[in-house]
């Protein structure tokens, strides 16, 4: 009964430790991730229904395909992946740790006889003297050795690159750290947005997917927003907002932000994200009453009905900087006292007399144009987990390079007496990239041979 239980837990443990599980979860993550790149994520139900039909939408909903990267099953695979990673590391780490804390200072007969890289020499020199000289050579060409005497034999051991054995564990740990950072960001951070009109300030932002505003605890004012263009074109060069942070009535930070250059205050970062017009363009108009010759100076915003004498009214309906080659132009119409709208006509700023030729009770000229006020659209993010993610990313790059580009290389030398002579046996191993190490070892063999011959 107990052994059965033992067997069962063993089997579960083996399952979670197995590399096959690693490969299968990795492939499963790869394949399932495709869904979310083909099917739009977090769109409105209507859009799914329009494109795929009602029944398919319900299927997507059940399978959580519409937000699949946060679905229970995708998070579940990630969880399984993490458990697998942890179990594998727990299982194998002690072995790597032992290489560090209890290196094999003494080569066993098996190592000396069966190593892929080995050499054997004999010498008339005595064990101690030759051992010292070999230790010196080894220190020069490879690494400083540790000497151990046992049963009249002298053992030398030297190693390099032991830390590359930990590269894989560091990479595994880094994945968990990145996940931790992501969780911290989700729990204690937020993503929001806010639109601020030029000249106004706000202390509230709107978290994505929520109708409840969030208090910043300070105010942000936008003094100006502008788009700059590359010379001779309509290709935008920069979107810039002049922002001021006001905390406790004090202007504490002033910065012009642009795309790729945000502002951070108290862990909250403001990114240039969008822009638009807040309010309407303004027009300064001169209206001449035909009959009397009287001239009125009026102000109008786009779409606004402005009364004229005798119950008439007019409205500016459109504006352009460049009407063909005639420069700025506005489109307007006049309404009669009974509310009938006349046909639209165009006036040109550069030709104030132009409208005089038109029939009607009034003639118009455009004196000035005021750009509509702009608002700047800011993404607002707070993510206390981001530094944890960077730490994990750094460890991942560092760990994977360590794991792939370095290897743990070890050299053992055993000196003992055989038939009145000193026998020198050398064995060497690398835990990765053996062919390159074999070539290096062949060269080292020559150095050992020289050291031994010099005195014998």
């Amino acid at each position, binding site marked *: 009964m107990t052994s059965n239980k033992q067997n069962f837990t063993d089997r579960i443990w083996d399952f979670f430790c197995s590399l096959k599980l690693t*490969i299968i979860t990795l492939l499963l993550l790869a394949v399932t991730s495709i869904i979310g790149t*083909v099917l739009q994520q977090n769109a409105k139900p209507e859009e799914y229904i329009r494109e795929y039909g009602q029944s398919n939408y319900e299927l997507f909903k059940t399978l959580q395909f519409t937000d699949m990267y946060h679905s229970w099953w995708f998070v579940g695979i990630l969880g399984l992946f993490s458990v697998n990673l942890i179990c594998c590391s727990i299982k194998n780490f002690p072995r790597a740790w032992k290489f560090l804390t209890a290196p094999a200072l003494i080569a066993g007969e098996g190592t000396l006889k069966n190593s892929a890289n080995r050499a054997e020499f004999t010498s008339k020199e005595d064990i101690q003297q030759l051992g010292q000289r070999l230790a010196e050579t080894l220190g020069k060409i490879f690494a400083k050795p540790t000497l151990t005497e046992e049963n009249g034999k002298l053992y030398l051991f030297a190693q390099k690159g032991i830390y590359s054995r930990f590269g894989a564990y560091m990479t595994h740990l880094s994945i968990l750290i990145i996940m931790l950072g992501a969780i911290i960001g989700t729990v204690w951070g937020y993503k929001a947005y806010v639109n601020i009109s030029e000249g106004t300030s706000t202390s509230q932002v709107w978290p994505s997917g929520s109708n409840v505003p969030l208090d910043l605890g300070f105010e942000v004012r936008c003094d100006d927003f502008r788009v700059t263009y590359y010379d001779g074109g309509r290709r935008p060069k920069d979107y810039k907002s002049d922002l001021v942070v006001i905390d406790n009535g004090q202007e504490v930070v002033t910065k012009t932000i642009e795309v*790729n250059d945000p502002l951070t205050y108290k862990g909250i970062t403001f990114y240039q994200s969008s822009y638009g017009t807040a309010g309407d363009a303004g027009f300064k108009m001169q209206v001449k009453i035909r009959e009397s010759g009287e001239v009125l100076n009026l102000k109008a915003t786009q779409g606004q009905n402005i009364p004229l004498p005798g119950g008439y009214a007019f409205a500016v309906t459109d504006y352009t900087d460049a009407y063909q080659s005639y420069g700025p132009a506005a489109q307007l119409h006049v309404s009669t006292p009974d509310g009938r709208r006349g046909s639209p006509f165009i006036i040109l700023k550069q030709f104030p007399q132009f409208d005089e030729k038109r029939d009607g009770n009034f003639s118009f000229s455009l004196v000035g144009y005021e750009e509509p006020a702009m608002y700047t659209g800011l*993404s607002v993010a707070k993510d206390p987990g981001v530094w944890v*993610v960077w730490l994990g990313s750094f460890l*991942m790059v560092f760990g994977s390079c360590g794991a792939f*580009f370095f290897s743990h290389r070890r050299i053992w030398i055993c000196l003992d007496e055989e038939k009145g002579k000193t026998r020198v046996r050398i064995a060497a191993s690398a835990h990765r990239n053996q062919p390159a190490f074999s070539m290096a070892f062949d060269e080292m063999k020559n150095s050992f041979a020289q050291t031994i011959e010099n005195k014998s």
Partner: protein
Amino acid sequence: MTSSFFFNITTFAYFASMVLCISYVATRSKSVATIARVVTLAGFTANTIAIGLRWYESYQMLGIDGRAPLTNLYESVVFFAWSIILVYMLIDFKYKQPAIGAFVVPFAFASMIWAQYSLSSAIEPLVPALQSNWLTYHVITCFLGYAAFAVACGVSIMYLIKIGKEEKHASESPIGGILGVFPSTKILDDINYKAIMIGFPLLTLGIVTGAAWANYAWGTYWSWDPKETWSLIVWFLYAAFLHARFTRGWVGRRAAWLSIIGFAATLFCYLGVNLVLSGLHSYGGG
């Protein structure tokens, strides 16, 4: 002389190099292999000069708005060709197996032909979203990684061709004919692994620099955008490949297939996402 002149030379040299590598496989002539190496190096030099000149030309055209030539599809494709040849030459220097060129240089040649015949080579100023130093680091690390995967894919194809024949002729002594000049399956398997070992940390670094940049520009380091997701898919596939090496039943054929599928996913991540799917990462599409 202009960059486009040197790009023409590059395309021609990669074509010649491809033909020479294939004729080496057919003739086994050592001198053909040597000429192939010289031509490849000449093409790589022309490619390097062309990219350098384009960089210089961007400053001539745009003044202070000049930038490293890594900003649109055309520029990325010619840089991809450059990276493939760089990684190939490193592998060739170490393993001295010119037959591999017949399966790797075509990737570089195809890239150059595509860039020159159907992509716009106009030098245009950067949109605001791309005006960042992260751009250079992100693009260079990603493409060197992609190039290593291209080499691994070419080698895997050779592996699959050769192992099929090897298993049929199991009892007989060395295989003659064209496959005789192929490196042994053991070496092909080793090169496949080495190339992915180079590519994987570079891809990791490419994803990390991309995430860092996204965080700096948009305030979120990961938004499951199709480009991001596909880069992660590629990462998962090669991670699976690397672990397959230690697992019985997954070495050899399956590993070679994983490497080929990995590169197919890489190509989709690079091109497919921009041409087929939509998302935040649309700069490379035009």
